[in-house]
């Protein structure tokens, strides 16, 4: 335990150092692009970590996580549009570009939607749960396609990033370090969460749903709150993604994004928290590199994923920390 624990700590520290040192090294080398690519990686990592909380710890295999990412992004996009054209939202709320207002709202709306979706989905389990989460996400996807007021199919352009006192989010360097801090904070929160009393109940319910009731814990409420916490993480990632790409489209709610997030979690290692960060990094880097050679880059990524899933029960992170074979 302690030896593999030290090794894990060393690897996490090395990863953290890598992300901290990347911008100065890239700037020194005169390359700006890596900073924007790795910003994207950090944002996807937040979404992947939140999905890992659901799948890896809670045993709730959701194929609709993109819904929360998309909702978070649309909160930024819609408030930006109202801020630009001066029309209040629903005749009441003025638009805003203030990150301190918009981002918490994005997180809150994603969490509340997760509460609603979760309260219905969690009455089912297994295959039905996968399908019902997928159905909810696709419903929202088509809802935003039909929402002509906010661009419909074409999406919404954002003309300037949100404002945050003391930082210039339009500056890629500032934005990168902000995303890194938010990822670190979310990781710390989830890391504590899964060891807490709440986390123990979640993991217990995932391990044996009948036993948890038999010892006197009704796990439904716990799992629902867990679903909302994961949804909030997705919403945060969505708000950041909208700012980074300065564009929001229904594609963010499509099941393909849910699938990609799931691939990142599996690639990095289910139930390892830091694994999904590694998974997001490898996935997006591979996509970047392979796409230079062929537009059918998935053809190469597919087999790679199959090999990882079959041979590494704990994903690439498990391989690094040396806990890869201990699963069974």
């Amino acid at each position, binding site marked *: 335990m302690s030896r593999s624990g030290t090794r894990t700590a060393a690897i996490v520290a090395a990863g953290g150092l890598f992300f901290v040192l990347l911008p100065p090294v890239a700037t020194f080398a005169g390359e700006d692009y890596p900073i924007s690519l790795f910003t994207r990686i950090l944002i996807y990592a937040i979404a992947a970590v939140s999905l890992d909380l659901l799948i890896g710890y809670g045993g709730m295999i959701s194929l609709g996580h993109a819904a929360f990412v998309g909702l978070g992004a649309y909160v930024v996009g819609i408030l930006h549009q109202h801020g630009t054209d001066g029309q209040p939202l629903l005749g009441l709320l003025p638009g805003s570009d203030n990150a301190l207002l918009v981002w918490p709202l994005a997180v809150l709306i994603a969490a509340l939607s997760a509460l609603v979706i979760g309260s219905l989905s969690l009455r089912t389990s297994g295959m039905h749960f996968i399908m019902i989460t997928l159905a909810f996400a696709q419903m929202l996807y088509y809802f935003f396609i039909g929402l002509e007021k906010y661009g419909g199919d074409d999406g919404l352009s954002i003309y300037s990033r949100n404002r945050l006192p003391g930082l210039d989010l339009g500056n890629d360097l500032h934005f990168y370090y902000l995303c890194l801090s938010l990822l670190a904070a979310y990781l710390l929160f989830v890391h504590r969460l899964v060891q807490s*009393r709440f986390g123990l109940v979640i993991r217990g319910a995932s391990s044996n749903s009948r036993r948890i009731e038999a010892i006197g814990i009704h796990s439904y409420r716990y799992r629902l709150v867990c679903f909302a916490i994961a949804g909030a993480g997705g919403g945060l990632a969505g708000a950041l993604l909208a700012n980074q790409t300065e564009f929001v489209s229904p594609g963010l709610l499509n099941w393909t994004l849910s699938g990609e997030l799931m691939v990142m979690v599996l690639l990095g290692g289910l139930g390892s928290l830091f694994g999904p960060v590694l998974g997001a990094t490898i996935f997006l880097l591979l996509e970047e590199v392979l796409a230079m050679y062929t537009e059918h880059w998935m053809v190469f990524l597919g087999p790679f994923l199959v090999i990882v899933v079959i041979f590494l029960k704990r994903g690439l992170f498990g391989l690094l920390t040396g806990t890869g074979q201990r699963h069974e």
Partner: protein
Amino acid sequence: MSDRILEVRDLTKSYGAIMASRRLCLDIDRGEVHALIGPNGAGKTTAINQLSGDILPDSGSIVFDGVEISRMPPHRRARLGLARSFQITSIFDDLTVEENLALAIIAHAGHNFRFWRNCLKTPLVQRELPAALERVDLDRQAGTIARSLSHGEKRQLEVGMALTGRPKLLLLDEPMAGMGPGGTVEMAKLIGRLRGEITILLVEHDMDAVFALADRITVLVYGECVACGTVAEIRHHPTVRAAYLGED
């Protein structure tokens, strides 16, 4: 406080044409070890499952410690002090031994959300965990993932979880099933130690163990209670000998 911890009246449960419980009546006194025996298919596990709430009866009443519980969900019965083990060992395979027991400990501390503090380091768990580990002889395996315990140790862990929170009635569904001779002795010792502390309803196939441990015995045949009495009475009961013990 009445002497009866559990009163079951006319409990009926059918699956299609099969009556798994047929107007079943059962009384358990405080402090006794009460065994439930009967041939295969007599409906012993169905009866236990209705007591714990995993199955709802078609009709009949179950009064536990003065409260009618026959329609209550399992987690609420557990909080009233009704604990159980399953016929097929049911523990949290993916958690460590201490996490398994910690879950059982916090289950009785009421409902609340704690998001930040490491559960194993909370005062409540720190206070109760050592005794819970010791009671079932698993102190040395505290950090082991439950999946990798031996079969007997898993059983001990399951009973240990059921005992945490000092239940008023412990339902043990074939605790010795599938154990080697050593494990059976261990389990019998554990049940013997609990005698007098907790009321136990024991479903068991091992007749030697039943006769050695039980104060009273109820015999089920085709979902119906055919006899109830002390060990000596049951040994010599003509219907029981014919229906059940005659096989031996």
